[in-house]
């Protein structure tokens, strides 16, 4: 909590159908643990982790939601404050992939318009049970212009990477916002300049930049 320790706190919401592995990914990421047993999440859970984002300490505050229908009203209340959303499906479950459009619509309706989204296809280790091919996920992600990774909580594939990507995008978004705010404050500028700025910042802090391991 001490501001000296952490530069910022990023609030991240994990969404997706029931049983796609939302709780699992949060446990894997925050506690480096993996449980093979599935337990339905009640309402909402919460974990946090301090990471080093290119040298800056950042607190990742991760909200794990229940995927079940009966908690929709409750969980929707958490969309608003989220800076990032990790949307998940299960590559062995076609329906969880089909429902992504529902989730994206839900996000659009309830979350802040500049919330950062990433898409994760979980259980990519389960080769024999795969129902959703990787390029299906890729295509959908391109359509919505969001980063996409296939992950595995069981084998710890891409877990850190996807959260780090999310964190980077949140940081870009925020520094862009701060800049535009300052710009507005300084000279009361119009939209043209902000657009310019956006492309400039994106260039600067692009993902091509090598990143350090967080461990």
């Amino acid at each position, binding site marked *: 909590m001490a501001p000296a320790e952490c530069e910022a706190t990023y609030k991240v919401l994990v969404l997706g159908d029931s049983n796609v592995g939302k709780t699992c990914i949060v446990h894997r990421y925050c506690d480096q643990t993996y449980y093979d047993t599935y337990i339905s999440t*009640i*309402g909402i859970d919460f974990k946090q982790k301090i990471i080093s984002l290119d040298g800056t300490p950042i607190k990742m505050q991760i909200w794990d939601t229940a995927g079940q229908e009966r908690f929709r009203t409750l969980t929707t*209340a958490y969309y608003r404050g989220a800076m990032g959303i990790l949307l998940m499906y299960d590559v062995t479950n076609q329906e969880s992939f089909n429902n992504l459009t529902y989730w994206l619509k839900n996000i659009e309706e309830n979350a802040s318009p500049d919330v950062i989204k990433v898409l994760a296809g979980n259980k990519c280790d389960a080769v024999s049970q795969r129902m959703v091919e990787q390029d299906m996920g890729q295509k959908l992600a391109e359509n919505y212009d969001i980063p996409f990774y296939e992950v595995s909580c069981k084998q710890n594939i891409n877990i850190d990477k996807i959260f780090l990507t999310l964190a980077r995008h949140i940081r870009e978004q925020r520094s862009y916002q701060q800049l535009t705010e300052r710009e507005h404050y300084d000279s009361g500028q119009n939209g043209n300049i902000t657009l310019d700025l956006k492309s400039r910042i994106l260039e600067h802090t692009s993902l091509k930049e090598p990143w350090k391991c967080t461990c």
Partner: protein
Amino acid sequence: MADNCNDQSWIAELESALKEDGSVDIDGVNEDPFIPDALRPEIWKSCLFFNHHKPPYFDEIFDLPEQKIIREDCQNFVDKLGNAEEEKLCVISDVECLVSTYCRNTGISYTRGNGWLDLLAPLLALGLHTEDTYSLFEGLRSRYVPRSYGELWALFRLLLLYHDPNLCSFLDTKKISPESYAAPWFQTLFAAPCSLPVVTKIWDLYFQQADPFFMLFLGLVIIINAKDHLLSLKDSSKEAVCEAVSSIPSGLQESDIEDLFALAQEYASRTPGSFRQDLERRVFEDDEVAEGAEKISQALCLPVSVSELVENIHLPPAIGEELLRFFLVDCRPADQYNAGHLPTAFHLDPTLMLQGTSVYKMAVQGLLSAQQQALDAGSSAGGEHLCFIGCGALHEDQYTHMVVAGFLRDYRPYVSILSGGYHALHNYFGDNVEETMSDHNQESCRVCLESGSQAGNQNVGTNGSSTSPSKDLFGKIGAVVKSKSAEVKDKLLEYIVNPTGGNVSERHVSPNDRRGKRYRGGSAVFTIDDSPTVPYAYMGGDEEEEDSQYETVSVSAWKTRPDLIASFECQEVKMNGQTYERRRLFKKFLPFKGKS
């Protein structure tokens, strides 16, 4: 015939009144709560004929669209009854006639597997005339068989969550909703899964409860009783578990029924009853969907209404001991808590959760040990049942819900949430907020600030007359309650905010709570002959003075057996209704009880 019938039903009514008393009084003359076979038809009639329709018109010609299905099903059904071959045809035509007439009269169409035939079986076994069987069937359907199930399943799940979160989570994880195993239980009032003698006994007792929701508690006992078996099936498929659950009632024996009911009564008395108010109309009467219908199916845990909570807080400990008592946990941000809260509410700052799990865990532990000590000391602030209070708006209660979810995840039973939160509480007290809340500060209280002058006008203008009777009531209670536990809670707050305080709470809670008990007094609460007794001197306004004898009895009776008295009239009391109006309802029940 008509005279004869009236005569009989009068005798039956008397008999049933006696029976009812017998089941209530454990030391009563008649130890067997079941109804003798000979009296059963009349007693069931008096229990079920509650809307006296003119006798239905039976013609023998039916041409409903679903007639073919009805005929087929009736044939199959009668085949299973095992009548003699020569009777069969007659019985089949009787049953078909009953079902078809019911369809025609009510406009509800028959669908296969809707449980009607199962419901008819115990009624047919009474051997009554078709008209009487019909009326029984109609009464049964209109009174005890739910009309809409969606919310009933949600409610049943919440009740299970309330009493056994572990089992509930197990079934959730298996993705088994109550719908998939309990549908035949409630649709047929256990007639489908149980044998005829068993179901007859269940109904004997069930009708005496006169509480349609009681079926849920029977279901609850049945399922919780089989918990160990069910949990051992954790590696089985969904279907296998589902099958295992739904077949539990078929193992019931006649000898189990009395215990089953005793347990169900126990569960019912340990369950907050507010859900009845909201749901009775929607589940058992017309299927009109009132606003807020979504609430129960989307609820995180069992909701408790403000009126139930307030009433519960003000129960003297003497009454409350064997009943459910709430331990109030206020989960609003600290500044809001400090600007006004219930005197008996303890504060748990949910933002501690964000600061790190260890801090939060210590706070929770402190809270729970305070709860234990309050319980040990018999304080009115103590209770086994946790009731969480949030702000009352979904987006503001994010942290509250997270805390509640955390408790549920730890499989803590008896977790409920105040519906509408502090906001509703504030509105309920209206003008009396100052006296009833501790540390209430108009300048910083969110609800006061939000409503501003608007609230003031409202209270003076529209509520002017209605709030006045409750004014001194709350005032008096407020004063009593206030002084009692303010200190306790402050210490706890201190402790929770600075968890390093170690055993601070231990030292402070008990002495204060004992003081609280002294205030409450209340040994004379149950006595009828005493004129206004100590606790009711606080509660009774001027208007109630002359009724105070009745009140003492009825309130306590209602409290000891909510399932018995909490019938429709009581539940029609609105949350904002005046207190003495509620009392008037109690009086209504008294003659009924008194005569027996």
